[in-house]
């Protein structure tokens, strides 16, 4: 590591730890948040938390919600949604690999997979994010906030979903493997064509749980400076001093996103249900 590198790492560390301190202090009074001054487009800050707009037909709280909505939605669309979709997709792949390793791989690989699941499930997600974003620079690994969050959430989804995937793969009766082999399929063909489609159906409800949790958990990325939905709400609160209104608004947006996913879950389940009570078909 060159001196220049070390300097930049030190600088990053200083910046990041400074940020943590501010964040910790900031939580006490919403005033010292480490943010740039955030101006709402149409609400001139008047201090003291009062933003009465002259001539506005809407009550103050609703006007504030309407005014902050574009900023929150934009943050949701540009950070929360991509972070959720990317880390869920990558996490599912990681979970699938981990589950297959735990079910079918030789003992040393199984041990590695178990260690991974044990560590990730046994430590708080927020702590993991801090280790990746604030901790790794000490080792010379300096990640931007978004990739750091993406890695943290992917590792997390990978560990949790691997347990679900492992369970649903083992829930497919042995006879289905044998039927697949008996018509000449190889292991990968049997897995892809016969086992996973059946396991997938059983996995929809538990994986939906994981997905919906993830949507809400992405708000933790605010703590490592990702300007996602919740952090944007925090920033607006810092200038408007309206925590109740803004945080309820943020909560409602999360609720809306989760609701969309619940609807998708129902759709997916009914699509899988078209082949009927397949438990009887296995009897």
């Amino acid at each position, binding site marked *: 590591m060159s001196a220049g590198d070390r300097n930049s790492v030190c600088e990053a560390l200083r910046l990041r730890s400074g940020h943590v301190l501010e964040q910790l202090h900031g939580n006490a009074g919403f005033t010292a948040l480490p943010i740039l001054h955030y101006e709402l487009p149409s609400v001139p800050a008047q201090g003291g938390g009062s933003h009465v707009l002259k001539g506005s037909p809407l009550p103050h709280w609703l006007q504030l919600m309407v005014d902050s909505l574009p900023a929150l939605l934009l943050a949701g669309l540009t950070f929360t949604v991509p972070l959720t979709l990317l880390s869920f997709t990558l996490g599912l792949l990681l979970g699938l690999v981990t589950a297959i390793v735990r079910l079918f791989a030789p003992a040393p690989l199984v041990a590695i997979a178990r260690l991974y699941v044990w560590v990730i499930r046994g430590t708080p997600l927020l702590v993991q994010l801090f280790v990746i974003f604030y901790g790794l620079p000490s080792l010379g690994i300096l990640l931007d906030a978004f990739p750091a969050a993406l890695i943290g959430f992917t590792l997390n989804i990978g560990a949790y979903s691997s347990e679900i995937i492992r369970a649903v793969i083992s829930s497919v009766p042995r*006879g*289905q493997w*044998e039927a697949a082999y*008996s018509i*000449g399929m190889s292991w990968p*063909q049997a897995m892809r064509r016969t086992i996973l*489609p059946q396991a997938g159906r059983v996995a929809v409800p538990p994986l939906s749980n994981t997905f919906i949790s993830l949507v809400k958990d992405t708000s933790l990325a605010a703590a490592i400076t990702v300007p996602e939905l919740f952090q944007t709400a925090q920033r607006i609160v810092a200038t408007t001093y309206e925590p109740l209104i803004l945080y309820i608004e943020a909560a409602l947006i999360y609720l809306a996103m989760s609701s969309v996913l619940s609807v998708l879950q129902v759709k997916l389940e009914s699509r899988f249900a078209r082949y009927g009570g397949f438990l009887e078909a296995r009897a």
Partner: protein
Amino acid sequence: MIELSHIVKRFGTHTVLNDISVTLAEGTVSALVGPSGGGKSTLLRCVNLLEIPTSGTIRLGDERLEFTPDRKVGWQAIQKLRRQTGMVFQNFQLFPHQTAIGNVMEGLVTVLKWPAARARARALELLEKVGMAHKAEAWPATLSGGQQQRVAIARALAPSPRVLLCDEPTSALDPELAEEVVEVLSRLAREGTTMIMATHDLRLASRVADHVIFLDGGVVVESGPPKTIFSTPERERTKRFIASLSAPMSYEI
């Protein structure tokens, strides 16, 4: 020619098959009968290598595979032998997420890489043969046991295997539904399909088989034409087993 020589299968210290040698001519139907745990199912599953014999030799047409306890058989060799067989299971084991015709097409499309249209035509032909063409688009869960088993027979026959293996094909069915399946299997037998079946069903064995092999304790106790084995068995063990079968002696149908 299907030749099993000196087949031994052990699970741990338990010997399930103890030096079994049988030779079956192509175009004939052989029934493996005997008490549960006697090894008939294991022997059948050794033919398509769902169980790998501990030692012995299997010859299927031109393929010959030798097993020894200290050497693992390669995947390629297993596939080569297995692809000459088709199997029908006691519990049908249709793929529940595919329609009847989808089940029959699966091996052709996924394994043999046939174009879908050609596979569909072949599948429909086979469903016709087992009397299930009218249910081609049905999900397995909506079919009766007998119907499911007939679809399963069509699925097993799709890649034109050299031998059809049937593991208790009628045991999960009531007598009426079993009759549908016996009907289909005896028609296949008349057409010259080579079959080996493990069964308790005397009706099936007596109507379909040319050759009966009585297995107990992992060895062949007695073998011969069904009439001889079922009506005038030589060995005491065979007599006791045949007498214990509650089904009427319906050999002379």
